[in-house]
């Protein structure tokens, strides 16, 4: 298999002068600058024409470069579009950067190469005002249609105090409502097919089974779904913009709330990325504490998944059992961190505090309890005949389709592909643990549930190993950029006092550079792409969440099925809207 330098050589042959430059990054991912007219060509080459191609379009995002100071040797650019490709066979990523000049630059679409590019490109338009030529429907995606400006551009204010006073004239309500009206034609749906009129059924934004504020409009022939359109953005909180306004340290609590069911599991990719930028080596004990808490949160997230999935299928009771069990897990989290759902416990360089006295029996007890409960869930749900009727064979998915659409995590594993970052590209110390990667067979709703259940067991296994192998030592790196700095010496030396004061008030100044870290989140691969301009805040924080591409697959998964099946699918793909909208 070729190394990244071979890929680079082939790209040079292919693109000639179009390949402008390569850029060193802190994360070691091959990063190539390709001119806008050749970008599509380069992407197609990497997707299809090499051996072991980069089949997964992991992410598309942009950087507003106009105010960036540290970009040595990089081609001139006002807006840089970043394509992040990933290859499963190579266990390798590649980043293609496209420099664009002008106020509203144009770029060719790649939706014909990857269908999953659709929403990402709409996000480019919505957030940066980059016009994507040839896109089937370039509308706003996260923000409402009446929004003025493009929020991730640097000139867009981040705080309400920077804007004129908010007004909402009465006629505004009417205009806004009219703009929100669903129009089948705008979505490319016909009102009349062959010899019948279609019924359009509006599901959400407030519907019992949409797991948050998601609007789905179904085009139906009787009870059968012909097509559907998702409307997202109701849960958008501007987390990426906040990343440009919060210090490196104070952004950590925001990450907890991205996938709000998985707590510190969200901290992990963020702090790992910052540590990579800062060059911090985390002590072993901190790594194992992180892994233990992250796995506990994976279990907690999967418990909610099961409870709500059963609820969607009309089972009344499991949701109560599972939330009760989740409470038990939370009580352990609370004993260790003091927080419950969102402890924000990880720090740049380690964790906030060492484990409290008597933590091990607590964790052992909850693991033993949950292991017993898991067997019960399997009996109550997975072995229930009606549960099987509702899930087996519903919306099967092939590995190819899943990769094409950027599916990761349990959704991809349910299709039969044993791809788990913890195993295949270990990060943060996962290489020292023993666990299996459960896979399904055909990727239907049942397989997804089964994979989730098995993952609970594997996570419990990892937690057990953490308890047994917890190394002694410090839980925080001894590094000037590790925040908050140690307090002990501050009252003896003026230098450490100054250092502590600056570190706490301003926050650390992270050296300029770029790094992306992706981890296996509860719902799929969760990645943070951080750009530092040598400041106390990130220049750009990109949060790549798994729920976003997964939800985009909804039409593919549910065409030709009926409404109850759609409910099974929504329950089985495990998304939360906060994770979709950020």
């Amino acid at each position, binding site marked *: 298999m070729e190394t990244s330098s071979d890929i680079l050589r082939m790209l040079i042959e292919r693109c000639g002068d179009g390949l402008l430059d390569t850029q060193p990054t802190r994360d070691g991912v091959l990063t190539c600058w390709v001119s806008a007219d050749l970008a599509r060509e380069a992407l197609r080459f990497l997707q299809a024409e090499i051996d072991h191609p980069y089949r997964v379009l992991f992410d598309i995002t942009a950087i507003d470069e106009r105010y960036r100071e540290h970009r040595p040797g990089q081609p001139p650019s006002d807006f840089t579009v970043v394509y992040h490709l990933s290859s499963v066979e190579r266990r390798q990523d590649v980043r293609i950067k496209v420099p664009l000049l002008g106020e509203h630059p144009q770029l060719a679409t790649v939706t014909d190469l990857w269908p999953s590019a659709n929403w990402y490109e709409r996000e480019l338009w919505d957030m940066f005002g980059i016009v994507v030529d040839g896109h089937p429907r370039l509308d706003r995606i996260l923000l409402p249609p009446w929004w003025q400006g493009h929020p991730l551009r640097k000139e867009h204010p981040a705080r309400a105090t920077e804007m004129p006073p908010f007004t909402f004239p009465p006629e505004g309500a009417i205009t806004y409502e009219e703009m929100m009206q669903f129009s089948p034609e705008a979505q490319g749906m016909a009102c009349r097919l062959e010899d019948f009129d279609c019924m359009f059924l509006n599901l959400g934004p407030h519907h019992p089974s949409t797991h948050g504020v998601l609007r789905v409009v179904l085009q139906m022939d009787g009870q059968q779904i012909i097509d559907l359109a998702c409307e997202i953005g109701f849960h958008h909180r501007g987390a990426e913009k906040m990343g440009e306004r919060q210090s490196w340290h104070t952004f950590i609590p925001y990450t907890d709330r991205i996938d709000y069911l998985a707590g510190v599991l969200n901290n992990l990719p963020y702090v790992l990325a910052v540590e990579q930028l800062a060059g911090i080596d985390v002590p072993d004990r901190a790594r194992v504490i992180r892994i233990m808490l992250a796995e506990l949160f994976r279990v907690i997230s999967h418990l909610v998944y099961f409870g709500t999935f059963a609820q969607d*299928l009309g089972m009344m009771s499991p949701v109560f059992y599972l939330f009760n069990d989740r409470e038990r897990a939370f009580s352990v989290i609370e004993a260790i961190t003091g927080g419950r759902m969102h402890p924000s416990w990880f720090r740049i360089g380690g964790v906030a505090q060492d484990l409290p006295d008597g933590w091990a029996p607590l964790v052992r007890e909850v693991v033993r309890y949950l292991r017993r409960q898991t067997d019960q869930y399997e009996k109550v749900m997975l072995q229930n005949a009606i549960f099987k009727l509702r899930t087996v064979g519903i919306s099967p998915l092939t590995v190819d389709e899943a990769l094409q659409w950027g599916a990761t995590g349990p959704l991809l594993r349910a299709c039969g592909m044993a791809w788990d970052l913890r195993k295949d590209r270990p990060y943060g110390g996962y290489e020292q643990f023993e666990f299996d990667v459960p896979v399904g067979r055909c990727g239907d709703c049942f397989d997804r549930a089964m994979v989730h259940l098995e993952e609970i067991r594997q996570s419990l296994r990892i937690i057990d190993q953490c308890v047994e192998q917890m190394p002694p030592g410090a839980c925080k790196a001894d590094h000037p950029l590790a925040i908050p700095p140690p307090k002990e010496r501050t009252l003896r030396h003026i230098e450490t006092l100054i250092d502590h004061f600056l570190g706490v008030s301003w926050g650390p100044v992270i050296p300029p550079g770029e790094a992306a870290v992706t981890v296996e989140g509860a719902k799929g691969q969760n990645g943070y792409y951080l750009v530092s301009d040598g400041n106390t805040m990130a220049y750009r924080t990109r949060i790549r969440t798994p729920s976003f591409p997964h939800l985009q697959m909804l039409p593919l998964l549910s065409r030709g099925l009926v409404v109850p099946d759609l*409910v099974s699918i929504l329950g089985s793909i495990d998304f939360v809207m906060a994770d979709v909208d950020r």
Partner: protein
Amino acid sequence: MNELLRILLTVVGVLLGVMTLAPGLIWGERRLLALWQDRCGPNRVGPFGSLQLVADMIKILTKEDWIPPFADKPVFIIAPSIIVTATLSSFAVVVFAPGIAVADLNIGVLFFLAMSAMAVYSVALGGWASNNKYALLGSIRAVGQMLSYEVFMALSLMGVVALSGSFSFGDIVEAQRDLWFCVPQCLGLAVFFIAALAETRRVPLDLPEAESELVAGYHTEYSGMKFAMFFLGEYIGVTLNAVIIVALFFGGWHGPWLPPVVWFLLKTLAVIGLFVLIRASLPRPRYDQLMEFGWKALLPLALLNLLATGAIILARGG
């Protein structure tokens, strides 16, 4: 004069009894569900939360009774009352104990079947008149489901009728003096029980109002007292079906030591408890799966039961 008074007393007694039991069932069900789901349930208003119902009633009576402007007004108003009337009138033919019955008609079972068929109108019209897509889908499902299950329901009861040789509830219960029909008619009981779940639209066969799919199904647009009528109708229906099961399969008022009415009541409560337990434990099948199960499994079973019963009676009686 005395006769008239007796009849009046029975009518008022039965009506009061049913109208206490059915709403009381709402509280009972919530407590039972809570017990099985590891939580508390309503426990604040009155002893053990038993006055929760009164609080709910006050709330629901003082709510705005909204009729959507796009609804078909007269039908929208009539629909909820049909279900309560139809299910309530079925109680007229049930014999609770010797001498305690409003009218022990000689076509009692048929009357019950006819009345339960009437309930379909309520759901169908309510959903249709709401002029709402969810309500429409719910009522389409309701009509399909209830009409189909009507068939198996009636057929499953014919075995009982054949064994006792009468349509009258009094005679049927009398015929079970030695052996309850749940033994020879176990197949009929199973079919009737499932059909009764479907008729009363209870979980797991609550597809017309499947919350996670259709929000509230056919009564999505209903609020206030009209919604309460549908709600009450469901619980009266559950009580009715429990009463029918007790009378036709579990020997009605027969039982040692205790007075007959008490036996009847205890058995009814036990059957209702079973309804609640099922609600707490099963998921909901899909609409087409439900219909398939009905026509491909329940119908042959009901017919088989009827055939076998007939054959045995013939063989015995000659």
